């Protein structure tokens, strides 16, 4: 996990602790989601350092979160195979 300081303009969609809902997840999924969250935060930082506006950063994150929402929902709502 990165120890660099968070970007100044971290979008609220990312600025929430993951722990409460990670704890309810399948153990196998947790490190994958943590990595994805870390990568999104790192992207915010690099976009900020490259001089992009907070509006651009927020739009990027919003689009990216919407993209992987379907995969995440599928993983979380996976039904047990029928016997």
């Amino acid at each position, binding site marked *: 996990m990165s120890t660099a300081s968070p970007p100044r303009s971290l979008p609220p969609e990312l600025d929430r602790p993951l722990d409460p809902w990670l704890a309810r997840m399948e153990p196998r999924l947790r490190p994958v989601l943590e990595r994805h969250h870390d990568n999104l935060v790192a992207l915010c*930082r690099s976009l900020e350092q490259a001089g992009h506006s907070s509006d651009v950063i927020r739009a990027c994150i919003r*689009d990216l979160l919407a993209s992987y929402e*379907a995969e995440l929902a599928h993983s979380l709502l996976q039904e047990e195979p029928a016997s």
Partner: protein
Amino acid sequence: MTYMSAIKFADEPGRIAALYRYEILDTDPEQEFQDITKLVRTLFNVPIAAISLVDVDRQWFKAIDGLGISETPRSVAFCDYTLRSADPVAVEDATQDPRFVANPLVTGAPAVRCYLGVPLTTPEGYNLGSLCVIGTEPRSFSPADEQVLASFARLVVSQMELRMEARRDMLTGALTRRAFSDALQAAAEEAAAGEAPASLILFDIDHFKYVNDRWGHPAGDEVLRAVSEAIVCELRPADRLGRLGGEEFGVLAQVMEADEALALAERVRQAVAALRVPCLQGHAVTVSGGVASWHPSRPDQAEWVAAADVALYTAKRSGRNRIVEAFGSLLHAT
């Protein structure tokens, strides 16, 4: 980020196996990857952005924005240079770079001039391909540009991981029924095209309902995990395990003929029979199995599965804890 291993540049077989584990090659376009290339293309203001995955002898694009091709030979891929690097690879003007001056992508369409690529590196340390931006004018990229693209590249990899996990059964880690069906369909098409033989093995745990009824569902879950682990131990990296039903598993063994598949199924049967699941207090676990290789007489997936199913049913009816092979209309029991 400190959770990545050192990059294993010399292990090409391992790299290819790692790429195949993501089961992403030759799949349909997917929104989350296309959104990344669209965003990158806009942010960098370039004509082309792509997610390239480098296979044995080709580069295949999971997403490409600004160019209507799906793959190129590996020999002309700029991304093959990126693959061999731990850092971004920047080309300011390809016509002045001896590595690319004679490249057909430079001398012909799309007339590549500038390129910035960042390797897609898995947590285990394999470079699978690259995320790249391509321009048709010379251009120099800044360190900040490289950092932005590197951030997107890490997202591509974690997106691939999330996608892979979404295709896995939560309890056993095997492919879901749907994901296994996709793999079977692809294998049937390759076999029909004469590209590679393939075999399907269906396993069903014997008397599983008895285990659940006597020791409870947590014990049943432990049996499912133990059986799936026993199966995986016998498989090659390219083989696929799917959980198809409550206590039914499927194995897709690619590039494998019938006799090898029968031997594999028998090894699995013996491995399962040797299991000792502590919560079952000495009760033995066994599986029955049905084997069917792809055959021109049953060219599509449904017929192929049906053949394996009939073989499995025959194994159950003739006493369980055995393997039966379907071959045309003949059955062969171990």
